[in-house]
């Protein structure tokens, strides 16, 4: 790849795989540090990053494992670099402790998890959506979660930019949950011109040299402004329960305030986080809720059902977490049945059931055989009694 697509004034047309589009999105968002460890089906992101980052003055480092990769991106972010890593199931499991650290210490960073079949080594090259709940609940303790899932190459680019923007805005670790199909399929993509890409940077406190800085003192937004190491405001960062000064504090009141704030800072702003698509849901009597590559089969199935006279529609969450609950309920307002196809055994389906309650039957279409879910399978669930 030659010139800097991301620096271009005019849009650039390319033919890319999802992993490549993800990397382009990261660079466009300002990512200048990548640490990673090879694993299918995500390795291309690291490979491409190793070639591109130094050309932009950025840094790439291959670490000894995914635990170290996660630690390195947190350290780099504290030193001021927008940072990311990319991995897949087994590596994502290894990252969990440090992902929790990033959330607790409020260090912006992005983790791409290209989902393959699990548990364990599972199916290294087959597609899957079976890490969805790990993306939400993988690390221990109560914590916030922002998880996006693209279904096209252009969207792999856009959601990666969004992940960085959300990470910077909310001072947390954001996860991009791509499935192997999106990661490896190739499509035409129009990379937007630089000035058309919205970039968010971490909010800085308004301080003069010598002013005291409390790194975890938040205003009404609940998101504390952030200084980087080396900028003249020395402070302490820990994964222990801490107070607004950043120092450990075991006082019950402080703990309660901290843990609620960490969750509430995302909860409070969640309307800004919801990315989704409604396709023919206005009058949908059968609603399909699908995300990632599965949503493309679902859209096809919806079209085929419509051709048969069935009022079918598709709701596609792009933001998987926080869950667009109201939007799902709204899309289902005329639904007599809801179908949730997933390349797992029903992880998001349980959420949809919880949101809609017992009044609407929710049918799962689940595949864990390393094959994509064909439109015909979804269609039979739409049509079937």
């Amino acid at each position, binding site marked *: 790849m030659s010139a800097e697509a991301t620096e271009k004034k005019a849009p650039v047309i390319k033919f890319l795989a999802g992993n490549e589009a993800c990397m382009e999105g990261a660079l466009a968002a300002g990512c*200048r*540090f990548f*640490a990673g460890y090879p694993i299918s089906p995500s390795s291309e992101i690291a490979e491409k990053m190793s070639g591109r980052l*130094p*050309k*932009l*003055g950025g*840094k790439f*480092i291959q*670490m*000894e*494992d995914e*635990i*170290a*990769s*996660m*630690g*390195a*991106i*947190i*350290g*780099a*972010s*504290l*030193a*001021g*670099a927008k*940072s990311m890593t990319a991995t897949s199931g087994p590596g994502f499991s290894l990252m969990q*402790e*440090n992902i929790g*650290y990033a959330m607790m210490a409020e260090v912006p960073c992005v983790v791409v998890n290209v989902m393959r079949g699990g548990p364990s080594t599972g199916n290294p090259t087959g597609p899957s959506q079976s890490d969805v709940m790990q993306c939400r609940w993988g690390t221990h303790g109560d914590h916030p979660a922002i998880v996006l899932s693209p279904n096209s190459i252009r969207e792999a680019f856009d959601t990666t930019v969004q992940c960085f923007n959300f990470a910077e805005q909310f001072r947390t670790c954001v996860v991009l949950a791509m499935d192997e199909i999106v990661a490896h399929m190739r499509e035409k993509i129009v990379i937007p011109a630089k000035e058309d890409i919205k970039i968010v940077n971490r909010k800085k406190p308004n301080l003069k040299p010598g002013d005291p800085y409390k790194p975890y003192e938040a205003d009404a937004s609940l998101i504390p402004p952030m200084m980087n*190491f*080396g*900028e*003249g*405001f*020395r*402070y*302490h*960062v*820990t*994964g*222990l329960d801490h107070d607004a000064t950043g*120092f*450990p504090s075991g006082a019950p009141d402080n703990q309660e305030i901290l843990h609620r704030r960490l969750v509430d800072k995302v909860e409070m702003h969640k309307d800004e986080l919801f990315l989704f698509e409604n396709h023919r849901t206005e009058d949908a009597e059968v609603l399909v809720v699908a995300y990632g590559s599965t949503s493309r089969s679902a859209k096809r199935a919806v079209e085929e059902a419509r051709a048969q006279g069935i009022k079918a529609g598709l709701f596609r969450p792009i933001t998987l977490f926080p869950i667009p609950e109201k939007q799902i309920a709204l899309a289902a307002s005329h639904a007599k049945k809801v179908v949730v196809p997933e390349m797992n055994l029903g992880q998001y389906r349980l959420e949809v059931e919880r949101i809609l309650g017992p009044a609407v039957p929710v049918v799962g279409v689940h595949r864990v055989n390393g094959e994509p879910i064909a439109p015909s399978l979804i269609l039979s669930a739409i049509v079937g009694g």
Partner: protein
Amino acid sequence: MSMDYFQYLRKERMPHIWCPGCGHGTIMKSILRALDKLKWAKDDVVVVSGIGCSSRTPGYLDFNTLHTTHGRALSFAQGVKVANPNLKVIVISGDGDAMAIGGNHFIHACRRNMDITLIVFNNNIYGMTGGQASPTTFTGSKGTTAPYGAIEQPFDVCNMAQASGATYVARALDIDAVAMDRVILSALQNKGFSVVDAWSQCTTYFGRQNKWGDASEMMDRYKEMTYNVRLAEKMSPEEKAGKYPVGMLFQTSRPEWCEEYGKLIERVSK
């Protein structure tokens, strides 16, 4: 040595958590004396640690301080250094932190040779969690998970560091402040990855379980278990057998990671 330690300490964080007789505070003071000589701007210094009694040190120090997860300090520290090579990065770790759960990061950090100094507060035991055996517990010594004495051979932190590629390697005892100051200062000055195996006594867990007595008796034991590397040539193999050399053990010069990456950037970004 009448320096003002408080210019580098966060007074409001006192008292510290360490037990009476613990060696960790002594090593902390050596680090401060070395930094006082170097006169680095406090805003440019980043002190990173893992989890353990030793890893609580950064919280007391008035620099940019990063208390990470157990064993992972070096991975965070390398991220800091690569992202901003102008920062002076010091890592403080316990023997459990650095050599057990962090063992893989340890060898790879040595191999990469970034300009970072790792000081292992080595007390041959897991202090914070209540005295379990660590990878540097001596064969035969007791821990709460080795009630009959450890049957395993301990790691030699310095041999590991040298074999893995560190460019400055030294060992010192907390009882010998002059030697400790000297090696920590040289470690900080070395342009590359430096490792100091800084021996410390855990009076509460190692001392009591092994009936080694109080802090001063423990320090005397450590003295008996070691010899000054500068006297090594004059000593017979029998005199050295089973003992650890102290002092500067190894130093070499080879390309530093961030400098090499800087050259790479220049080469490819034209």
